[in-house]
């Protein structure tokens, strides 16, 4: 077994002290509590500050646990936050592609639609926010499962090429493509997809038509950047 990494051990000790002190300690107090030189402690604190694991009160200089650390445990991004952050990209994607746009995320094993922009033809459509779509037969589901922990081997191709397609498997005549959206951590937090009549989305050889795939992946990248990725 390899030895432990000293700086991680020291950072963990500092975090324990910061958590216990409830915002009453500055660098001198923390250095004393963990038994390190003040300069060493200071440089470790600076790094923890950078990654958002601690915060510093501007007036007192005292440290407390950072929002980044608190968010770590909750594991997933708030679905409503996801909708608010993706809205401009999703609207533009629907307007430019002429297709309906959906953003979905995993809640447990279920694929839940968190944002839906209508196909821009003013036909009667029903808002699908909050509905569950099948994980097995949709492009949205394929992307989310492909990039989830312990993803099935059958989805290796989706992982490799970075997008998934659906050719009427869920609903005859309906086609869709979807691409991953990544959060600040780099993990896939959602899938962005566009869909419509099969012949509108795919050409005769079953490939996404013209610029659709580029528009989709650009938008997915745009949302990812909005979420702090890359």
């Amino acid at each position, binding site marked *: 077994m390899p030895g432990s990494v000293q700086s991680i051990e020291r950072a963990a000790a500092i975090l324990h002290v910061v958590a216990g002190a409830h915002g009453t300690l500055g660098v001198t107090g923390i250095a004393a509590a963990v038994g390190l030189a003040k300069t060493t402690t200071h440089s470790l604190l600076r790094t923890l500050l950078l990654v958002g694991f601690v915060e510093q009160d501007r007036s007192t200089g005292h440290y407390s646990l950072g*929002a980044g650390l608190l968010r770590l445990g909750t594991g997933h991004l*708030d*679905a*409503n*936050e996801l*909708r*608010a*952050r993706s*809205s*401009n990209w999703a*609207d*533009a994607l*629907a*307007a*430019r592609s002429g297709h309906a746009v959906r953003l979905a995320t995993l809640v447990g094993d279920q694929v839940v639609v968190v*944002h*839906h*922009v*209508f196909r*821009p*033809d*003013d036909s009667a*459509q029903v*808002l699908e*926010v*909050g509905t569950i779509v099948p994980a097995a037969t949709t492009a949205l589901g394929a992307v989310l499962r492909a990039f989830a922990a312990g993803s099935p081997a059958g989805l290796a191709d989706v992982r490799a090429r970075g997008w998934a397609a659906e050719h009427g498997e869920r609903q005859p005549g309906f086609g869709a493509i979807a691409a991953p959206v990544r959060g600040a951590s780099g993990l896939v937090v959602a899938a962005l997809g566009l869909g419509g009549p099969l012949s509108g989305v795919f050409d005769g050889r079953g490939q996404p038509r013209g610029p659709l795939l580029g528009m989709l992946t650009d938008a997915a990248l745009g949302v990812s950047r909005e979420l702090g990725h890359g």
Partner: protein
Amino acid sequence: MAERYVLAVDQGTTSTRSLVFDRGGRMVAVRQREHRQHFPRPGWVEHDPMEIWANTQRTAAQVLGDVGGGGDVVALGIANQRETTVVWDRATGRPVTRALVWQDTRTADLVTRLAARPDAGLVAERSGMAIAGYFSGPRLRWILDHVPRARERAERGELLFGTMETWLIWNLTGGPDGGVHVTDVTNASRTLLMDVRSCRWDPDLLAFFDVPAAMLPEIRPSVGVLGVATALSPALPIAGALGDQQAALFGQVCFAPGEAKCTYGTGSFLLQNTGTELVRTRSGSISTVAYQLAGEPVHYALEGSIAVAGALVQWLRDGLGLIGSAAEVETLARTVADNGGCYVVPAFSGLLAPHWRGEARGLVAGLTSYVTKGHLARAVLEATGWQTRDVVGAMAADSGLSLPALRVDGGMTTNNLLMQFVADALDTPVVRPMVGETVSLGAAYAAGLAVGVWSDIEALRRNWHRAAQWTPNPARATALTAEYPKWERAVQLSIAWGAP
């Protein structure tokens, strides 16, 4: 044929944005620059007009560069923060003081004095609006009273007055070197100096506010060529200008009587087109000019302003720390099924439409030990829905027009729970357009219409596409109608609480 683009400048309260739209009404480029907010004393809010002019030039030049130099950009439209007041020296182009922003309350005492005069009824009668510090005329008067030698210089014709669109158009068309001094009719209608029927400066109102006519811009239609923006490009016509809320109405293509939009931001502004007849209001909405196409009659609108909408969610985040981001309010609200009997009236600095009670103060009503932060979050969102119902009710009483659907825009439209609540509370479908940038789109539409990028308003209507629709649930609508009197009671309590 090469694509033809339209440039829009959205001169807002916190930033100046330049956007380029294509003929489909789709945004193809955007640049933005914030300007400094000056708070020299409590209640005073100022902007530096020179900074805003520099930001306009800079963002416009950038965005023209983004679309290949601007050769295909055929018109410029301007939308602006309303009622913000600038006075400058015609010879040097230098403002005599910083701009007095629409949020600035320094004219309160002046307005109280003016309103007490026996002839004060003239203001509402001619301008269509009750005398209030909210409008630009009293700010102009304040500058004339307080800036050394301003009045005598204005009377000699050395100083010019304008709202932000006037200031920018004058600079864009040459400034001291032949700049065009004009205002659009929607901005002029919010000075309290214009006769709302004839749409001309009213000599009696000028006398009432003691404002020299020599410093006033010429009033022009919102849609029509105003001058050439030589500061940007040798042949780019400025062909449209509107106040920002009127621009949003235009961008939402609300051209028929009854059609209405609501912009849900920090506050909310609901405008309903009432056609070419001015509606006299009794129920707390105000009559305002919606827009005017060159050579056509003026279209009017009813307006309802809500001071606190998104600001209440910000308070939940920053004041109470119950949520980490504005969007999380929906997550918190969905932890419970209803408001648990809790109501929040966000009268942080009084209530605007339809109550107009400056003394009202906010309250949380109906607290029991059952109420959790989830219920509070729901009550916070519902407050915006209930306030929308207050305003729509007042407008219906004033105009007699039914509301076929409410077109919405602004940041809060990503809140699904709120949008469904609004649909249920109004028992009216709520629809969101594909292009959320309705203010700048409206400015682009006005300018493009004037130069023939679009043939007529029907062509603009065809560009409007629905991105989402919230349909009222009949059972919920009935239940909310039964619940509405509770909200009204909470509002009355907030007014009573703030009474001296």
